[in-house]
């Protein structure tokens, strides 16, 4: 059994996941539709695509400009060619200042296994986004790009939180949230280092933009003495005008909000005249395969702004959740990104090619077309000999009308233990209308 098949079967066997993922994904998808009501969404998507394509086309120059602006503001910029290098750099910085970090959610840090690396070095890592805190407590990776605990019931959250609290909390989401808030507040005050992701980085102004709803990103970047922001190199945008297009596209596509509760724009560490903010700020710009992808026909995948809209409408994601895709990104974007950045060429097949993702992507990434491309690559160099042979025989037979007629007649009458047929008939009848 293949990797995705095994993982998806495990996911299908989890009753909580099966109840919650479709429910909350659907809710998010519906919120997105409401979020764009009265707006020419297709025009906005076209503008978003243009802004992102510009950024990726000019990536080297924009990153140089970003770095120059950040350094001029007193930020230490580190370009990390690999995930391992990024994790090593962050760990070194953290160890210079202490043994504890507070973190706001960041897919880039998930991608490089940062928490594991820090913990191996003896650092306590506290995730401060509520959903991320829940999955961290459960010892699980996030199940969704922006809703990490999409699969958890309030009852499961209670079971996770009560041992931490050492007292009963109950099932009321407000009580559970209040506990997390109080618990995390102490960590914010204590931790010498805060780590955040980056939603956008504006090259023109050297601005790091964080988009959150809980304010934890702002606390991570302002309370600790040191702030480290980890960004995939493609997070960069040219200027504030492009940011103005992309920011509402991200929030409306992700949660249906006109704007999130907190949008934080950072232009370096605390200045002499300022009353708060970190004394030291680092920005880690992560490549980890992105430069390579930029030179391929899959370049447009770097346009992604990580809104999660494709996951919410995906009928496959809906059934199996994000971790079934085997790496940090689930859903259609994961089925495309994972083979490109991480390997696992099979994942291009983890889609029924329904194209619902194409219709919601805020930056018009042609996910359907990219999935087909990945399938072609796999067929050319990674498909097994049996599969190749099967298609060879198939095309031999079906390019000959008499063999075609014979085979469809047999297919209509086929019964018994034919391997491929059994993969159909194990769960479905084969109805024939003559």
């Amino acid at each position: 059994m293949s990797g995705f098949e095994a993982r998806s079967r495990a996911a299908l066997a989890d009753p909580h996941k099966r109840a919650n993922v479709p429910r909350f994904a659907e809710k998010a998808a519906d919120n997105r539709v409401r979020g764009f009501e009265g707006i020419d969404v297709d025009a906005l998507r076209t503008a978003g695509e243009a802004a992102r394509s510009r950024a990726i086309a000019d990536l080297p120059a924009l990153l140089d400009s970003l770095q120059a602006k950040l350094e001029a503001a007193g930020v230490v910029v580190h370009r990390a060619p690999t995930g391992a290098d990024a994790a090593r750099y962050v760990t070194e910085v953290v160890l210079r200042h202490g043994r504890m970090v507070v973190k706001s959610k960041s897919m880039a840090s998930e991608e490089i296994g940062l928490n594991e690396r820090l913990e191996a070095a003896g650092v306590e890592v506290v995730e401060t986004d509520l959903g991320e805190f829940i999955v961290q407590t459960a010892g699980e990776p996030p199940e969704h790009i922006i809703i990490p605990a999409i699969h958890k019931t309030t009852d499961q959250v209670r079971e996770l939180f009560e041992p931490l609290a050492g007292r009963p909390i109950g099932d009321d989401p407000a009580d559970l949230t209040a506990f997390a808030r109080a618990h995390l507040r102490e960590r914010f005050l204590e931790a010498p280092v805060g780590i955040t992701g980056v939603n956008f980085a504006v090259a023109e102004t050297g601005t790091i933009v964080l988009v959150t709803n809980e304010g934890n990103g702002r606390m991570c970047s302002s309370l600790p003495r040191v702030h480290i922001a980890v960004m995939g190199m493609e997070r960069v945008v040219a200027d504030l005008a492009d940011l103005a297009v992309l920011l509402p596209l991200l929030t409306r596509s992700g949660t249906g909000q006109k704007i999130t509760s907190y949008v934080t724009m950072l232009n370096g560490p605390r200045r002499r005249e300022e009353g708060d903010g970190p004394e030291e700020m680092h920005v880690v710009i992560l490549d980890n395969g992105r430069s390579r992808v930029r030179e391929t026909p899959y370049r447009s995948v770097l346009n992604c702004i990580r809104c999660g809209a494709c996951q919410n409408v995906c009928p496959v994601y809906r059934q199996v959740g994000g971790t079934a895709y085997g790496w940090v990104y689930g859903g259609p974007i994961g089925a495309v990104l994972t083979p490109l950045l991480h390997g696992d060429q099979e994942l291009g097949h983890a889609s029924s090619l329904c194209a619902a993702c194409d219709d919601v992507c805020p930056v018009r990434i042609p996910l359907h077309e990219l999935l087909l491309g990945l399938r072609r690559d796999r067929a050319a160099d990674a498909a097994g000999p049996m599969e190749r042979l099967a298609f060879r025989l198939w095309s031999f037979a079906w390019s000959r009308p008499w063999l075609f007629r014979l085979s469809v007649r047999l297919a209509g009458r086929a019964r018994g233990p034919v391997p491929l047929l059994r993969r159909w008939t194990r769960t479905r009848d084969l109805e024939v209308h003559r």
Partner: protein
Amino acid sequence: MVALFPTCLGEALNRAAVRDSARLLTAAGVASERPAGATCCGQPAWNSGFVRDARRVARRTLRALAEAEAVIVPAGSCAAMMRLHWPHLFHGERDQALAERVAARTFELSQYLVDELGWRPPAPANRAEVSYHDSCHMLRELRLHDQPRALLAAVADLRELPRADRCCGFGGTFSVRYPDVSTAMADDKLASAATAGAVTLASADPGCVMQIEGRAARTGAGVRVVHLATVVAEAL
């Protein structure tokens, strides 16, 4: 000659739908023929990444359709393959011009009846309730939403399915590559049919019919899943 291309699934599993499609065309005043030598549009291999195998099969069908003034396809997904993907499949290859010409003359059945002929079936004495499932490529590649509904609404009380546009989980080879996920998706579709209280569920794709009907039969779901052409032909 107007060619009615049965498609591989139509030939193998749903000849009734092909016959019913021919009846609709006749009722609309069009004499259609089954093109000799046409087999399959090549989509199973195309969607699996095996381009040469897809082209090998598609070329046979393409040439069988060379003389047709219009090609009618009672399968939205195959129509999308032929109209939109064949020009790419044959790009820079032998038969490129032919592929482009045939692609431009290819129509999904309801698209041809409604958009090209402006035909509607006559109103029957009794109207049953029918729901419609949008097949993915027909809706999101060919953008055919109203055409099948126009045919159904003429002969039946059309009751919209919640999330009619959500994939039924067939996906061609996807259905046997990941049968458990595919089946869970079919269950989702059947649940939405149950929510709507659908008695009859029509689709314009033999693949979706095969998937939803096959799962309904296995689980004893009380809904009749049937090709759009059959529903309309029964009312003639």
